[in-house]
């Protein structure tokens, strides 16, 4: 564990988490959630959990984002909060 890299990645993760629930557009929220998943994957790879990081990179950042975009394509992008 390198604590400088750890702190930068963890603060970026918190920023992405806050941004994805406060942004006023659901499509932006989906893309920021994908960025959040990928930063989380980098943290786990840096901690030595390469297996979990690989799974998160394929599932969380790849397939979940596609599912979310497909779902809001058939609903609406509008959100009030």
């Amino acid at each position: 564990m390198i604590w400088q890299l750890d702190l930068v990645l963890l603060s970026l993760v918190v920023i992405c988490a806050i941004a994805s629930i406060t942004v006023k557009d659901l499509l932006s929220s989906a893309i920021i959630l994908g960025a959040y998943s990928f930063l989380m994957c980098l943290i786990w790879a840096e901690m030595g959990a390469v297996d979990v990081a690989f799974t998160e990179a394929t599932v969380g950042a790849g397939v979940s984002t596609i599912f979310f975009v497909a779902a809001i394509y058939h609903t609406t992008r509008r959100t009030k909060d």
Partner: protein
Amino acid sequence: MEFIIAKYNYWIYIILMMIGLYAMIAKNNLAKKVVGMTIFQTAVILFFISTAAKKGATIPIVMGDPHLHGHAIPGTVHAIQYVNPLPHVLMLTAIVVMVATFGVALALVIMIFRRYGTLEEDEIIEIRKKAVV
């Protein structure tokens, strides 16, 4: 002060978990609630991976000896040199459950939108009140 700085992973995990809980409870949009659920689950996984980490340890893959058919030489593997792999294996199952619940939640969101025409929680409650009266 030493206690706060030395365990920064756990503080970030608590912050992320509270962000997810706030989004699940207080947000008005149903898709935002699903986003909050995903953040909550990844925060729990971050906690478990943090318990496995060690200072000065490497990834838990033991390089075997080619003369012994890939097995390591007995007595040369020290557990202190490797990260604990048990929480990693537990969290692999948690990620699989995460994508399954995510798909089911999105299917429910699409069905609610087809029925009511909106994703806002208060507008759905208004429509349901009018339908009852």
